[in-house]
């Protein structure tokens, strides 16, 4: 029989086989024909498609009704072969009625050969299949069955590990596998002499621990057969002559472990190994001599590993001049590389650099001093691919956390203009990061502040605060506004109040999240500052409204109460407002009550000092009023001193 030829001939030839098998009743003949079919389709995608098109699947499934294990195993092997090759082949297979029930039933078969063939088929069927988890997790019994199979036979291990890894995509999957006891059977596999099983085990651990601290903690408590901690055993596997995929997978796993206390507490060796082994391994794979895929994975792992880990950021920065290695991510030539890979590479580069410069001033300096980096960054922010521009913006955010950089290189480059464009894009994440970055650009010591404000950025920020559907965007917008108002001019403050409107404050203060309330109070504090402006701004906002805010907010958590008292202290600094407060018996009573709580002492003291206005005329009178309400006058205020305005709030982050 010819293997090559046009599709029609293929189909014609194959059809005769199908007829033969249909008409045959002799098991031996059937087996031989199935083997013949297997030989024909092996290695030929065309033959597989042709076979599927003539409906071989139901015919073969029909022949498996008898308990003939040899036929069953052979049929499963044919199906495995059919599901490989063109990606459409699998879809055709999955459309066949009862195929899933068939393979699942075969997995419970007593016969070893059938079981292995069924596992191989299921693995091939689920490999790289988007709905694979739905198929597996619909069968909770099958999961437990697989877990019991793992220790039974080494031949079962690879396919089962591979199926679990393919299907473990979110915390629901992770927790289901965890609850089914998958962790109990994995430790012995990590010491398997078969490197493919070790790799598959590490991959499954990685899939289980991804963004799941509970499982990561459970994994860290595991020990191998000799009683060694599994983390230590995995760390021992890092040897640079092993394949890059394997090494990178281990490093990825360590990025999930990094937040565990066990890494930093008990054996100091583990933390040291992160510096001396995991990070160097990642930096090694960032070098241009590696494949693009490996460079992408390595840089992403550096980002995951070092974000919020100050010590590791420093260590990674020092390792083999990682910064300059990562800068090469932006110089790759587009020849012969697909644009998606290049985008992923640049994204990974920016992500890693964002993590490394998150807290360390020296790395920021070195990065900004490195040739052309600002150009790369601008290109990145400009990139039509939002993933790249988002990563670039995150990197810019890290860089703006430095006072010096805000006043030097970042000011010179006018890079904020690009940020302003990003702020107006529809991508929520982009809005989020650009608002966070504007928080820093808009601080009073930032020379860009005036330029940015003249672009009417406040209007945009207020719009985001009032109308964005995303809480993070609203929160960052609120934060930015708080920073804008810090030490701002009377006109700007009035403008912001006009734009926001009183209702917006109402709405923000009635939010369920105390963080929102805190920041709104902070915004009000910044608005109600500067002795001359206080009375007018309070008038604009409404005295009653403000007093009510203070009244209401001081009944909440200690943090919110403190903010509200600070706001009251600022208000008391205005001459007119001072009278208004001192005339409000209810509030003064409330202040007296609050002053009995230890946690409020400092804030109350500020309030009283400002209410007293010791160096202004009428201080004695004011003192009397307060004494009427049993409010204690701080000892140092008994004589003449200057008033205290509680410091305004700003976020530099």
């Amino acid at each position, binding site marked *: 029989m010819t293997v090559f030829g046009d599709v029609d001939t293929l189909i014609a030839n194959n059809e005769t086989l199908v007829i033969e098998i249909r008409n045959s009743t002799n098991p031996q003949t059937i087996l031989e024909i199935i083997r013949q079919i297997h030989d024909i389709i092996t290695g030929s995608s065309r033959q597989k498609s042709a076979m599927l098109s003539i409906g071989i699947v139901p015919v073969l499934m029909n022949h498996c009704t008898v308990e003939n294990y040899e036929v069953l195993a052979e049929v499963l092997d044919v199906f495995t072969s059919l599901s490989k090759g063109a990606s459409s082949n699998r879809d055709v297979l999955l459309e066949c009625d009862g195929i899933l029930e068939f393979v699942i039933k075969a997995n419970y078969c007593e016969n070893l050969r059938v079981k292995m063939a069924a596992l191989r088929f299921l693995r091939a069927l689920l490999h790289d299949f988007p709905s694979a988890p739905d198929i597996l997790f619909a069968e909770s019994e099958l999961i437990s069955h697989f877990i019991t199979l793992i220790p039974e036979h080494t031949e079962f291990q690879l396919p089962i590990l591979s199926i679990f890894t393919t299907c473990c995509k979110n915390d629901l999957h992770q927790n289901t596998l965890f609850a089914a006891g998958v962790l109990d059977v994995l430790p012995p596999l990590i010491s398997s002499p078969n490197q493919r099983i070790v790799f598959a085990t590490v991959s499954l651990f990685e899939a289980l621990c991804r963004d799941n601290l509970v499982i990561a903690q459970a994994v860290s408590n595991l020990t191998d057969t000799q009683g060694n901690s599994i983390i230590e055993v995995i760390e021992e596997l*890092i*040897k*640079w*002559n*092993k394949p890059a995929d394997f090494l990178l997978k281990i490093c990825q796993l360590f990025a999930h472990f990094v937040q565990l206390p066990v890494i930093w507490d008990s054996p100091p060796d583990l933390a*040291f190994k992160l*510096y*001396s*082994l995991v*990070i*160097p*391994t990642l930096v*090694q794979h960032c070098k241009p001599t590696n494949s693009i895929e490996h460079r992408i994975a390595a840089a992403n792992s550096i980002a995951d590993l070092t974000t919020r880990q100050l010590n590791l950021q420093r*260590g990674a920065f*020092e*390792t*083999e*001049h990682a910064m300059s290695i990562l800068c090469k991510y932006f110089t790759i030539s587009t020849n012969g590389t697909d644009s998606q890979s290049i985008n992923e590479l640049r994204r990974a580069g920016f992500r890693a650099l964002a993590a490394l410069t998150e807290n360390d001033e020296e790395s920021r300096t*070195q990065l900004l001093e490195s040739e052309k980096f600002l150009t790369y960054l601008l290109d990145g922010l400009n990139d039509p691919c939002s993933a790249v521009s988002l990563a670039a913006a995150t990197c810019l955010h890290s860089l703006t956390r430095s006072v010096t950089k805000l006043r030097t290189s970042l000011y010179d480059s006018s890079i904020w203009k690009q940020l302003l464009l990003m702020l107006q894009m529809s991508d929520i994440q982009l809005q989020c990061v650009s608002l966070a970055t504007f928080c820093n650009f808009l601080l009073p010591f930032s020379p860009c502040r005036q330029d940015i404000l003249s672009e009417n950025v406040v209007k945009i920020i207020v719009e985001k605060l009032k109308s964005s559907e995303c809480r993070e965007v609203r929160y960052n917008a609120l934060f930015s506004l708080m920073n804008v108002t810090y030490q701002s001019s009377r006109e700007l403050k009035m403008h912001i109040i006009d734009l926001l409107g009183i209702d917006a404050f109402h709405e923000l203060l009635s939010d369920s999240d105390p963080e929102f309330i805190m920041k709104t109070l902070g915004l009000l504090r910044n608005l109600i500052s500067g002795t001359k402006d206080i009375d007018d701004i309070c008038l604009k906002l409404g005295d009653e409204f403000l007093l009510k805010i203070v009244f209401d907010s001081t009944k909440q958590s200690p943090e919110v109460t403190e903010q509200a008292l600070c706001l009251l202290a600022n208000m008391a600094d205005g001459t007119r407002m001072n009278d208004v407060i001192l005339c409000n018996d209810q509030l003064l009573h409330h202040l007296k009550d609050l002053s009995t709580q230890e946690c409020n002492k400092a804030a109350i003291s500020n309030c009283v000092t400002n209410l007293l206005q010791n160096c202004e005329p009428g201080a004695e009178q004011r003192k009397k009023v307060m004494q009427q309400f049993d409010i204690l006058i701080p000892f140092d205020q008994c004589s003449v001193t200057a008033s205290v305005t509680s410091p305004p709030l700003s976020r530099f982050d």
Partner: protein
Amino acid sequence: MNSMVECIGETSSAQSSKNRLVSHLPHLGNLVLPSVWSAKDKTNHPIPTACGLYYFEITVISKGRDGFMGVGISSQSISLNRLPGWDRVSVGYHGDDGHSFVSSGTGQPYGPTFTTNDVIGCGINFLERTCFFTKNGINLGVACSDIDLEKAIYPTIGLQTPGEIIEANFGQEDFVFDIDQVICEITKKLNQQIEAIHRPFEMQSTLNQLVSSYLVCHGHAEAANAFAQATGQSLGEEATSISNRQLIQKYVLSGNISHAIFTTKKLYPGLLEKNPSLLFQLKCRQFVEIISGVDSLQEPEEIDGLLPEARCVEPMHTDDEDEVIDHAMTNGVEEVNLKDPLEQIITAGRELRLLYEDIKTSSDNNSENEQLMHDVFSLVAYSDPKSSRVSHHFLQERREIVYNALNGAILDACGLQRTPPIHILLSHVSECLDQMTSNGLGARSFVQLDQIVK
């Protein structure tokens, strides 16, 4: 290991204690450390370039007054009053500013500064001609990428202000930095380079020929046939000829030397007569095998491949050795009873002796032959020859040696290659590696031929 240190710098002093080398510098000066420790040779030795990768570490015990310390490498001609890196052909990493200096008084920003309790390492990769430094186990990256290897280079530590104390580790203790990973990496890179080399010939057929000739040479007839069929090539030798050699191989390797000699004589007449030394070896082997109880002097009658299988390789038990020897001594019969093992040993021994005398005049390796003969004769003197001084004669390897000699002689006689090309290839590679070593090519250190062959 006791390290000898000779300090070149006049104003510096060095103390050495067991497993510990401490240099304490009261004044300005440089310390050039020997890289190869030897109790006899007290001079400073340069780093051998053939090592491929060289690494040492220092621990800063005290940074002294100002911590103006430098670690690195330098040629012998540098001024010992200056820190490594400042002079020509020297590289240094300085603790006070963290800069690297490459044959220049001006440093480049390189890494962090270092001070008391820091462990600083210096590594030289002779393959890439690069120099890197480490601090507390972290590789700080390449400091110099084109080291001049024309001149001999020395590990160097420069200390400039009073009170600076360092301790050096040249491998006598574990390094803080994981140097094994670098070795793994270089090996991997080197293998990739080798893989990437363009081969001017078609590799697969060459490999097939190598495998085929190996199988033929060692008489693996069936494997050779199957391989030839699978790869579609000719064997270069008649299948029957291979089978014949295989038969002889079977006899020799199972200790049935009488059959082997008989078969060889029948199949390759004149071969053994032309190679008396080979015959002598075979006879010696036969003597040993008779003692083992595996062989006998009885010659087979037929050789058409249906010869009886050789017996198991268990040597005979010699519980009653003394009695047997007594018997042999008192008996002294001329008539040989070939069924009696003792008679056979005596006869075989006599034959061997005669043969030795015969070839004494013609053979080149007389002393070897004599030694061999004495060795095998002495086996009879032990009550348990298997645990005696000469017990190695019972090892399977001894049969293999004899077989290889016989097989080679047969192949020679048939006009075929005596040594399979793959062996020649291995010898060439081995020699090539030796040449690399003697010429100081570092890549050699990362090739383990034994492991590859394994």
